[in-house]
């Protein structure tokens, strides 16, 4: 089979991308960029525009002029069309629609009384997936792009592995116990409820088993891993995947809205999304939708998500025993072979990156959440381009704002940290910084004082350049993966989720989402 199609589109997209990058570089796009407020993306507009544009032009010309024969060259180069197609959509969404929607949301706020773009999470993540869904269901993915669209899951997995670079040992030790307890309770509980409900509703054991793994653990991968253990048919796997994706898509849109309505913090929302949403990609989607301009929520959600994946061998073992008991005479399955053969390797990659990052090769050894604390004179007293000294110490007005509201702070540790800040005009330790972030998040003082605390926090917290680069790369891998994911959600696959598995999966999914919301709300403290 020859995959390369004679089409002009990869070449056209390549030329558009290069032209756009050039216009940004030459300053011609300045008024538009200024209007959209997307100046901080100007660098990546040039780098990504030139890179993907050049690839599109070279491969596009080759596809147009050459007559490729069946083989590896044809197979892999034919993916470039789909990659440029997804990137084109991602560029339009991330650099155009996202800031435009933000502008409209803010403009309509006085009339509507709320920012619809913020409330409905109309950011690049959500709009990217919607764009993908619209393209596949209204226009269909063009034939020349289909092979490349199948690379989107590779993008998501690569993003998850790279995410490991952002974690530190201290952070995982902090969240680890909590995530294991929470996830353990909800994973095992969900599997148990699906098995019970499936039996009550007379679903086939194989269908129930594969649905239990999918709903309980980590969605699609778990369903696929559990399938041979319960001897599931391909239609049952498809039903389960359809159910998981449909429920996950709903969760991805609903979770951030609920989280924002409840005023949840990053850790709380990350813990809830990582526990309550069924599929890894949609956990990432919801976390990014909740906090599109930062990565704290995504990191917490992924820790919970990864913890959940680590339960897979236990669930596979449980299902194997359950199935053999239910189906007398079932053919014996080699359990170890299934676990070793199906365990997602990208999870091990994430742990490897985390281990590398914990050694301090990407950021100062004591980095926490990718950031490190430094309040030395070297960073507090910097020089601008003209050689003039710029101080990041708090000024007299700042200190007056803090002193005026200091009486509202009741906790002794918070009072002491605040006093040290006022005395020294800068945050004096990591512990003080965390304590004062708690004061800001609890909204103990007014806006003016909170702004000063945030300013003091930013002055002593620094992000290592390498970690910043990882953040940018991760955001793009996820954008690429999620736009492609949207292009795989057809109405047919959604309809496929109908019937019993949808009912059982939804009941358990809702119980899990609501239960985890209550538990997270009560137990998870906000410390970021």
């Amino acid at each position: 089979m020859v995959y390369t199609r004679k089409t002009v589109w990869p070449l056209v997209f390549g030329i558009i991308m290069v032209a756009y990058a050039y216009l940004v570089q030459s300053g011609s796009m300045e008024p538009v960029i200024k209007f959209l407020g997307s100046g901080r993306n100007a660098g990546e507009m040039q780098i990504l525009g030139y890179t993907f544009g050049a690839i599109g032009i070279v491969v596009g010309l080759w596809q147009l002029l050459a007559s490729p024969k069946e083989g590896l060259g044809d197979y892999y180069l034919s993916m470039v069309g789909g990659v440029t197609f997804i990137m084109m959509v991602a560029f339009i969404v991330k650099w155009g629609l996202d800031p435009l929607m933000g502008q409209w949301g803010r403009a309509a706020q006085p009339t509507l009384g709320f920012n619809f773009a913020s409330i409905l999470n109309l950011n690049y993540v959500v709009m990217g997936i919607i764009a993908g869904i619209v393209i596949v269901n209204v226009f269909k993915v063009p034939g020349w792009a289909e092979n490349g669209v199948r690379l989107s899951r590779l993008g998501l997995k690569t993003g998850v592995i790279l995410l490991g670079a952002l974690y530190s040992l201290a952070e995982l030790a902090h969240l680890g116990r909590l995530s294991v307890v929470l996830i353990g309770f909800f994973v095992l509980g969900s599997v148990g409820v699906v098995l019970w409900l499936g039996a009550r509703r007379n679903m086939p054991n194989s269908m129930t088993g594969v649905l239990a793994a999918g709903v309980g653990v980590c969605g699609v991968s778990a369903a696929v891993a559990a399938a041979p253990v319960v001897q599931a048919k391909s239609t049952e796997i498809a039903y389960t995947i359809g159910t998981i994706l449909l429920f996950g898509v709903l969760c991805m849109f609903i979770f951030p809205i609920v989280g924002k309505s409840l005023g949840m913090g990053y850790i709380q929302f990350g813990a809830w999304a990582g526990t309550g949403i069924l599929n890894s990609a949609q956990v990432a989607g919801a976390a990014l939708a909740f906090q599109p301009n930062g990565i704290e929520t995504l990191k917490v959600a992924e820790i919970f998500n990864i913890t959940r994946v680590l339960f897979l061998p236990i669930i596979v073992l449980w299902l194997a025993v359950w199935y053999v008991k239910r189906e007398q005479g079932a053919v014996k399955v080699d359990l170890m072979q299934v676990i070793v053969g199906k365990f997602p390797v990208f999870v091990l990659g994430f742990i490897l990156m985390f281990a590398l990052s914990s050694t301090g090769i990407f950021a100062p050894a004591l980095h926490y959440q990718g950031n490190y604390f430094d309040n030395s004179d070297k960073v507090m007293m910097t020089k601008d381009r003209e050689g003039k000294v710029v101080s990041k110490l708090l000024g007299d007005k700042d200190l007056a704002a803090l002193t005026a509201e200091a009486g509202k702070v009741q906790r002794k540790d918070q009072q002491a940290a605040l006093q040290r800040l006022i005395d020294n005009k800068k945050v004096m330790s990591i512990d003080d910084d965390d304590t004062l972030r708690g004061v800001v998040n609890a909204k103990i003082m007014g806006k003016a004082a909170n702004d000063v605390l945030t300013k003091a926090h930013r002055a002593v917290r620094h992000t290592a350049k390498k970690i910043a680069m990882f953040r940018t790369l991760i955001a793009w891998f996820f954008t690429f993966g999620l736009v492609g994911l949207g292009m795989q959600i057809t109405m047919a696959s959604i309809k496929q989720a109908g019937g019993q598995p949808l009912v059982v999966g939804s009941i358990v999914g809702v119980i899990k989402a609501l239960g985890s919301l209550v538990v997270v709300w009560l137990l998870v403290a906000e410390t970021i």
Partner: protein
Amino acid sequence: MAEDKFDRGSALTVFKSDRHEDFMALVLALVIALLVYLFV
């Protein structure tokens, strides 16, 4: 996208198995990490 459109991989991936895709993601991520470590 129907399954039978592709004689390699599946409707969801260009790789012959999930494990193969996982390894490719791992290699890609490690190469990127090395480049970031060396040049950023």
